[in-house]
């Protein structure tokens, strides 16, 4: 509220020559962009302000920000100024943020969002809860995308051959193209665009094609996240795509599909999956996930049964599963079944399980798999009754005549392309290597590039016209979500650098004189809304809700065609048996970089990969088996007191051997990381790194895998690995992968084992109390405390047998959080949401390698394989790496201990408790002894070792010799409600105290107005922590534990809720609900206990107490449960 006044005024020089981030009024008059603000304020009246009126209105608006002052006034303090609006803007109250609906387009789908703006400056994105399937969640990329808006390295001016051109000149160039090709009907004109779900673009492209029928319109995406249409065409004879309802699925088989993270619609999938997985009480059902995969994805990490299998063998697997689920087809499927090392029992039991839950089972296949697999999977889904229940099919709007990049390349080679317009994308970087795109592009006479960054594609040819592309937060547009619902893309701010949208370009080339992107969208939407709807009302509603009601296409009935599939399958092909000398290579979109589009996003670069935990880099992932064959398995030491590390660490930095990967004669080099859980001879190569032309953040981070990728093997290929003998350092944020048999994540199987041992959830829902030191120690809160209600405990803090007593917590609320480990999928969205909300800086690879990352919340990822050695000095079990790990994920952040150890040790009272149970951190009091961080058992405190905000990350060590200060553009990304920390202070999660305080104040103001001034308790659900709000699976619940009916109180009342390291008696306010696994007892790989529990028992239960009955008995005695 006040921080916005601290942006110093751009100096006069800056205003004249540098980019003026905040436009002057004169410019405002002449640009249509600022109307965005208008529409948001007056959705109803926007229409009446069209044209001149609107311009007039815009004219009188002043930038609302205020400027910091210059110079010193006397010796008191610097003179600063308050700059009010020249004219008031109705509805804008300085100091109060406003939220507007928009959406982030992602390939053929979109994520509906709400943008929080402070006087026209968007600072934070949240999911739009009006879109039911996402339930208000936003993905990692969506959370981070706001940083791209304020990327100082984005293209800041239209250029031609490197020289700046004005907007008028750009218009002229486009008009010239339009005029020149009018005569030839577009012959010689070609477009290369990204995929899009935008109805407006579809309409505009149709118009373009109508005007230039002989032009080429090609679309290219380097990675695929939707099932190939060919499969549906073959199986159903229709252009349909599946829409999954994971919430209804009790049994799920994923065939190499990472539906929780990288596939289109992952947010909806994750939310649905979590609904089926969340277990609040004993009677709640729990879904079961079988994952068959070659890599280790987040989806695989959630699997109850996981089968490692090369992607190339998935067709065989699908055929066998199809045969097992549909006996009638066995004969026809036999030719496609090969020996792939999978036990028939596994497949049979899996199939039986699916059939047993007919109508509530679902099989999904990975988008990268060939159409044959998808066609078989459709067949299986039909066989298990999934179609119409857990999966529905909606028609796809196909645009006729859309060409591919290969066809375009052929055309260019043939010399038939004279003018090439590249809308977005980055083909010079990510086109298939065999096309030799950069050379092709150079051969085209005229290239117009619409790009957000100056990148490889801009640099590929000399005379290229680079048109600045607007960020989606600067653009008018529309998009469809995964289920086809139309959502608006609404600008939050005038294009900072005069960027244009694809739609404007297309419209202009089509011949529209003054394309107005708002009008373009309004036309489409009004058209979609159907007859009878008035344009203004439709738009008003559309922009207000952020979704166009009933715009999703209705599911269509489909009929499975055996013949079609048989045709598609064609003649059986032999399968390749992979080995160390001939490995399967999988090119996958990176968790964070996607296909490379987010390469210059510091938040994403620094966010560790959820599985490998490597930030700032990609690595060639190999299985432990392959590592052994390649002779790069870390040696470990003679006495291995803890499990052997999966990588070699020198001075705490991962030192990875660099290998050369040869695929079809094309070579790439990259560091190798050993990744447990991979198919033995599959190597995973994440795309999106190794950008050679981009901003300062992304340049040279990681290695570029595209040069090894040809158009005939875009996703799966085979290749060879050779050790180059060199090593590279990687920034791995988690050095140790094993939980070491500790009671950190407490797990149980959902169902009892064949021989009941009392350790399953159904037998003992309070199983968490039988694990850990506190299970066999006297209660920390004493008999008195045990008798209290949670509400009494939160206020009175019973101390058990301690001589000390805690002062009462007498706040009106008592804040607490519960994290459900059972549903957390480890997507990292919370990490970046927190980063955006709380102004958390990035520190750069060098500092992450040292261990100085600043994330307030992190996801701890542990593997367990049940092989740990129980003896103190270790043993053989400790010397092996897990090949078949179970994965346990744990979001870890400040747990706000009631008896906080960090507070006790701070000498200056910089971190103390408030009366509502928050462990506060007063930055301005902190002198930086770091004692609190040492004494934090959860290691969640973060120290500002350098002035991360004021210094460039590559000049941290230069001290005063380096530049000081934050670029204006970066300052705009900061949340004004949160202090930006300086060097030398500690920071950590505050439970989003700014949200709490503002909500409390707003509630008090509101209640006072309503004449109920004594009502100061904020209703449950008003306050959502940033991590909670974005979580797609709803794993995080935050609220007032003083209210027994609040969501958090209910979450904490779950019997499997426990405090991590509870025995320390620090009384964390954030508790965790134990993780459940739901393996099928009939499966051949069934284990009666989760591996982590086996490891716990091995480490903690003496052999004499077999079957771990001792802690169970203790726990039972204590809780009086079961």
């Amino acid at each position, binding site marked *: 509220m006040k921080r916005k006044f601290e942006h110093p005024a751009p100096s006069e020089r800056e205003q004249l020559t540098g980019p003026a981030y905040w436009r002057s009024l004169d410019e405002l008059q002449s640009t249509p962009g600022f109307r965005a603000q208008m529409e948001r304020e007056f959705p109803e009246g926007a229409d009446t302000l069209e044209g001149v009126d609107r311009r007039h209105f815009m004219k009188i608006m002043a930038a609302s920000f205020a400027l910091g002052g210059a110079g010193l006034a006397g010796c008191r303090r610097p003179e600063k100024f308050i700059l009010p609006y020249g004219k008031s803007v109705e509805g804008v109250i300085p100091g109060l943020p406003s939220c507007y609906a928009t959406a982030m387009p992602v390939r053929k789908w979109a994520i509906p969002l709400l943008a929080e703006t402070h006087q026209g400056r968007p600072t934070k994105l949240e999911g739009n809860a009006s879109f039911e399937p996402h339930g208000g969640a936003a993905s990692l990329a969506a959370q981070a995308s706001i940083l791209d808006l304020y990327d100082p390295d984005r293209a800041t001016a239209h250029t031609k051959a490197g020289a700046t051109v004005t907007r008028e000149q750009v218009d002229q160039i486009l008009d010239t193209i339009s005029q020149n090709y009018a005569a030839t009907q577009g012959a010689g004109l070609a477009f290369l665009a990204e995929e899009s779900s935008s109805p407006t673009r579809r309409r505009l492209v149709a118009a373009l094609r109508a005007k230039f029928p002989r032009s080429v319109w090609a679309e290219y995406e380097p990675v695929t996240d939707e099932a190939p249409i060919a499969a549906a065409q073959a199986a159903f004879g229709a252009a349909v795509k599946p829409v999954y309802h994971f919430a209804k699925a009790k049994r799920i088989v994923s065939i190499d599909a990472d539906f929780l993270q990288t596939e289109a619609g992952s947010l909806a999938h994750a939310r649905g999956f979590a609904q089926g997985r969340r277990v609040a009480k004993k009677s709640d059902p729990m879904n079961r996930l079988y994952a068959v995969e070659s890599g280790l994805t987040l989806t695989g990490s959630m699997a109850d049964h996981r089968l490692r299998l090369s992607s190339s063998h998935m067709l065989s697997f699908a055929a066998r599963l199809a045969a097992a689920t549909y006996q009638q087809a066995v004969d026809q499927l036999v030719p496609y079944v090969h020996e792939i090392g999978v036990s028939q029992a596994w497949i049979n039991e899996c199939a039986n399980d699916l059939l047993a839950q007919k109508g509530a089972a679902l099989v999904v296949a990975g988008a990268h798999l060939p159409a044959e697999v998808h066609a078989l999977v459709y067949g299986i889904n039909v066989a298990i009754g999934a179609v119409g229940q857990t999966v529905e099919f909606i028609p796809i709007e196909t645009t006729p005549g859309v060409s591919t990049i290969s066809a375009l390349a052929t055309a260019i080679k043939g010399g038939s392309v004279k003018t090439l317009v590249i809308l977005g994308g980055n083909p010079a970087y990510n086109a298939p290597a065999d096309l030799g795109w950069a050379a092709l592009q150079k051969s085209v006479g005229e290239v117009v590039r619409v790009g957000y960054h100056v990148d490889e594609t801009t640099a590929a040819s000399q005379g290229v016209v680079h048109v600045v592309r607007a960020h989606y937060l600067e653009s008018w547009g529309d998009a469809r979500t995964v289920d086809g619902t139309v959502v608006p893309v609404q600008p939050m701010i005038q294009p900072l650098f005069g960027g244009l949208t694809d739609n404007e370009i297309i419209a202009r080339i089509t011949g529209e004189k003054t394309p107005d992107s708002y009008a373009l969208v309004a036309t489409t939407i009004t058209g979609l809304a159907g007859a009878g709807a008035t344009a203004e009302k439709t738009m008003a509603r559309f922009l207000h809700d952020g979704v166009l009601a009933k715009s999703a296409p209705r599911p269509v009935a489909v009929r499975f065609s055996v013949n079609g599939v048989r045709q598609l399958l064609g003649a059986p092909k032999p399968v390749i048996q992979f080995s160390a000398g001939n490995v399967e290579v999988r090119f996958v979109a990176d968790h964070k970089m996607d296909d490379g589009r987010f390469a210059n996003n510091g938040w994403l670069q620094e966010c560790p990969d959820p599985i490998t935990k490597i930030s700032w880099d990609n690595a060639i992932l190999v299985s432990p088996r392959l590592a052994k064959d390649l002779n790069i398995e870390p040696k470990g030491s003679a006495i291995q007191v803890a499990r052997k590390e999966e990588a070699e660490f020198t001075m705490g930095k991962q030192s990875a051997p660099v290998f050369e990967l040869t695929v079809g004669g094309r070579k790439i080099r990259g560091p190798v990381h050993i990744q447990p859980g991979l198919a033995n001879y599959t190597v995973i190569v994440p795309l999106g790194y190794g950008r050679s032309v981009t901003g300062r953040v992304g340049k040279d981070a990681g290695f570029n895998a595209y040069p090894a990728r040809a158009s005939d093997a875009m996703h799966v290929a085979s290749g060879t690995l050779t050790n180059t003998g060199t090593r590279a350092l990687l920034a791995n944020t988690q050095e140790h992968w094993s939980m070491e048999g500790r009671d950190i994540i407490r797990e149980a199987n959902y169902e009892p084992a064949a021989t009941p041992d009392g350790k399953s959830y159904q037998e003992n829902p309070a199983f968490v109390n039988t694990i850990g030191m506190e299970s066999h120690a006297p209660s920390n809160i004493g008999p008195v405390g045990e008798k209290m209600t949670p509400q009494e405990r939160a206020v009175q803090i019973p101390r058990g047998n301690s001589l000390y007593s805690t002062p009462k917590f007498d706040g009106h609320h008592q804040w607490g959080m519960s994290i459900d480990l059972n549903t957390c999928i480890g997507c990292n969205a919370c990490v970046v949401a927190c980063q955006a909300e709380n102004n958390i800086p990035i520190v750069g690879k060098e500092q992450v390698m040292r261990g100085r990352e600043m994330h307030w919340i992190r996801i701890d990822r542990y593997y367990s394989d049940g092989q740990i050695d129980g003896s103190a000095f270790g043993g053989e079990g400790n010397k092996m790496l897990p090949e078949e790990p179970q994965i346990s994920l744990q979001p870890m952040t400040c747990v706000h201990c009631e008896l906080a150890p960090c507070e*006790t040790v701070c000498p200056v009272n910089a971190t103390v408790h408030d009366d509502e149970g928050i462990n506060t951190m007063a930055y301005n009091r902190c002198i930086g002894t770091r004692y609190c961080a*040492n004494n934090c058992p959860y290691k969640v405190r973060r120290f500002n070792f350098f002035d991360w905000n004021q210094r460039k990350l590559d000049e941290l060590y230069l001290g005063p010799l380096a530049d000081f200060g934050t670029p204006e553009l970066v300052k705009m990304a900061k949340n004004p409600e949160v202090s930006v920390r300086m060097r030398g202070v500690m920071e950590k999660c505050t439970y989003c105290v700014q949200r709490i305080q503002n909500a409390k104040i707003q509630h008090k103001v509101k209640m006072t107005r309503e004449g109920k001034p004594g009502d100061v308790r904020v209703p449950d659900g008003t306050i959502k922590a940033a991590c909670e709000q974005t979580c797609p699976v709803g794993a995080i619940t935050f609220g007032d534990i003083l209210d027994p009916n609040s969501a958090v109180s209910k979450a904490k009342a779950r019997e499997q809720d426990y405090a991590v390291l509870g025995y320390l008696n620090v009384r964390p306010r954030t508790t965790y609900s134990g993780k459940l696994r739901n393996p099928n007892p009939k499966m051949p790989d069934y284990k009666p206990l989760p591996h982590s529990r086996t490891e716990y028992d091995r480490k903690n239960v003496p052999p004499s107490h077999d079957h771990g009955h001792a802690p169970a008995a203790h726990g039972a005695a204590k809780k009086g449960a079961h």
Partner: protein
Amino acid sequence: MAHASDHAADAPAILSEVKPAVLPRATLVENNRSFNWITEKICGIIEGKTPTWWWVCFILACFVASFTVAGITYLVITGVGVWGHANPVNWAWDIVNFVFWIGIGHAGTLISAILCLLRQKWRTSINRAAEAMTIFAVVCAAIFPVFHVGRVWYAWYLFPIPNSNVIWQNFRSPLEWDVFAVSTYGTVSVLFWYIGLIPDLAVLRDRFFNAGNKIRSFLYGLFAMGWRGSNRHWSNYEMAYLILAGISTPLVLSVHTIVSFDFAVSLIPGWHTTIFPPYFVAGAIFSGFGMVLTLMLPLRAVYGLQDLITQYHIDCMCKITLATGTIVGYAYGIEFFIAWYGANPYEGFAFINRAFGHYAWAYWIMIGCNVITPQFFWFKAVRNNTALVWILSIFVNVGMWFERFVIIVTSLARDFLPSSWGYYSPSIVEIFTFFGTFGVFSVLFLLFIRFLPIMPMAELKAVTPQADVHGGHGAEGKH
């Protein structure tokens, strides 16, 4: 010192009967030197021409000390990040060095105070240098906790100074206790040292006046406070000295106890240990005597002080080193026992990891230097071999530095959640900063031996046979 037996005589009879055993009967000042010889010998060091070696050493020491100055300057203007610290190891060389130097300082106080109370008269020849060592060690120690904080310019927040933020200190924090303990320790050590210097400063005042050096005479005289050797003054002086010795003893114990609380009060496995206070104090004495030997043996050789620092002194110090080293070794063992006996898996792992984990090399250096090295002092032949004693004393210093490193770094590096386990390695800046503190110490110590009497002349005279008013026949005369 003289006062001890006097007061014992005044005390109830029973007290004189329970006198602590005065085992040594060795000569404290050899060759029956006269009072004047002592004065000449000690003042001669100050009054003589500055030896060339002193200049060489001094310039060298200044050069080394400049590393600390440069390192700290760079640290303050750039950020703590120039050191190797990171999560989870937020304290490392800074606090290691702090505890190391403070520990060294403790021997000085111990020699001057505890031995004074225990009437170990052999302390007289070494106590002045030992006290100086204490002060200089505290100076070196204080550098680290002061500058390791992220915002040193706000370090005044540590002191209860009323200000417009109305917020006070957290007196529950061991670090706040440390602030008081270390500043008290520094202050009292300086006072104790100064009060001992007063009579000697008076001697220098007069001698320089007679030699015609009015400026130095004035300076010494200023601090001599007009001391004139009056016995009425001596009476109060001795009482004050005794009291200071009396309070220094619990002080020195409390200081290292409180330093150990920095760790013991926390909940990190490997830190959260109740045996830390006695173990730290023993370690401090151990390292302190190691340092005294390291410093005094060369000094004795250079200045020819064999008559004042006799073989007997060395023998005594070796034995104390042996005793405290063995205590320390015992503590190492007990830690493992308790970790096992306590059956806390986190605690157990912390210790197994210490000995066999990533930092095992540091642990075994520590064991080698601290437990094995002093065992050589069982042999008289070793104790009599000055060169060997000196080498072993250096091992003790190294070992004690590693003890702190092992405790602080290995415990932090692998604590509760394996996800946050890490490995700490120092940056070049902190290596040089630490190295430089030896320069700081040397600069101060060189200045001390050049400008102040390195031995307490009055006290030395008091333990000579001639000092006995009842005409004793030697040092063993009475007591």
